[in-house]
């Protein structure tokens, strides 16, 4: 007999007064998977991770395997994992051809998605390149400047290797997993983060970056640093950390082993970066015009879809 499982949500609570947003609370509620992994052996952790994560499943698996290997002293220099990359690119394709058209009031490009997803799964780069040159897709990109209402005011998390990450975060903690910080502030992770943070529109920069990731793969660019990059490093004896660049941004696993058994397991998911209580949503919505509630709700929807949480989200008016 299976039971209902609460799989989490992002809750955004807006307080409005005198026609303005005067309070923005962002809370990411996700089940703590790591409590199930403590006290388990490596094969048990691998089985559990492979059974639970449907989104970014390859990325989560790779992070788990690499982190546990690093705990045994094996490092992994940054490299592209093609399976993780293809998984992320299919996510990008879904967002670009099904979610983005909805935001722009455009018809969903379902047939193009089916063809593109098949091309990515089968490694047919030329087919994807031809598809991305399709006038309907190019037309979508042309319309991205229509919503330049979200200027980038947030720190952008650079793409880091596991070794680099040790300089910034010598050890991870449960608090960091819930509210990760980059140089003392909330930061956005995912597409756009590898470039400078002076671009004017978050909306178009984010969506163009997703298209660019697709085009880079279709063009044969396989340099580490793109989505799909994995790396791992021993943190201390018995402790390993892995970093994986997923569709939504940086995923980190850090595991402490006690012999063959997991003593502690920490996961920092991209959603915790992108939906930080003091993150981009707070910066964009605090003080916003709230006289037209429908328009404000559309703006919230646009921001959230562009950031792309890995859990459902809810808007609450307080």
């Amino acid at each position, binding site marked *: 007999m*299976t*039971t*209902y*499982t*609460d*799989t*989490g949500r992002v809750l955004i609570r807006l307080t409005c007064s005198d026609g303005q947003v005067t309070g923005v609370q962002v809370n990411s509620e*996700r*089940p*703590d*998977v790591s*409590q*199930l992994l403590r*006290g*388990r*052996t490596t*094969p*048990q952790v691998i*089985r*559990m991770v492979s*059974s*639970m*994560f*449907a*989104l*970014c*499943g390859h990325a989560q698996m790779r992070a788990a395997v690499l982190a546990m290997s690093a705990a045994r002293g094996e490092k992994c220099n940054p490299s592209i994992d093609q399976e993780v990359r293809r998984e992320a690119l*299919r996510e990008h394709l*879904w967002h670009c051809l*099904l979610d983005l058209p909805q935001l722009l009031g455009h018809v969903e490009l*379902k047939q193009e*998605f*089916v063809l593109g*997803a098949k091309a990515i799964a089968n490694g047919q780069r030329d087919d994807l390149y031809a598809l991305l040159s399709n006038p309907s897709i190019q037309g979508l990109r042309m319309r991205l400047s229509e919503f330049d209402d979200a200027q980038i005011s947030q720190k952008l998390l650079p793409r880091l290797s596991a070794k680099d990450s040790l300089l910034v975060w010598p050890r991870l903690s449960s608090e960091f997993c819930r509210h990760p910080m980059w140089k003392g502030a909330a930061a956005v992770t995912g597409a756009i983060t590898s470039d400078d943070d002076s671009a004017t529109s978050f909306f178009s920069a984010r969506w163009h970056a997703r298209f660019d990731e697709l085009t880079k793969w279709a063009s044969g660019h396989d340099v580490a640093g793109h989505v799909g990059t994995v790396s791992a490093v021993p943190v201390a004896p018995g402790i390993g950390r892995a970093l994986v660049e997923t569709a939504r941004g940086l995923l980190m696993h850090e595991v402490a082993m006690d*012999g063959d*058994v997991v003593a502690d397991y920490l996961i920092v*998911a991209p*959603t915790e970066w992108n939906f930080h209580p003091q993150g981009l949503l707070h910066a964009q919505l605090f003080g916003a015009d709230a006289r037209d509630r429908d328009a404000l*709700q559309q703006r919230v*929807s646009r921001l*959230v879809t562009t950031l792309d949480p*890995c*859990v*459902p*989200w*809810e*808007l*609450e*008016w*307080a």
Partner: protein
Amino acid sequence: MASKLRIPIGVDTAMCLGIPMQIIELEGAFAWCEGRGRHERLSTLWLEDVAVGDWVYAVLGQAREKLTIERVIEINLALDGLTAAMQGETDLDKYFPDLPASK
């Protein structure tokens, strides 16, 4: 103080964690599915062909992958273990039945 209004946006039972669901009715590029106490309409665009009775891995309102019944049992056990852990259960060995026990 103004009354609270909570608005679920998009699909109502999505998650980065997947759940197995069984297709009970097809509706164009969608399928009505049931599993783990949920009843959802999932997009089937990720899958080449699906039929009533198929088990799928559901996430964010999408049927991502077809599952064998063995895999369904395995995933459900993992999710049962997660639910138990979230509810404070400490003896979780039964959720890892066919693997060497932890210490």
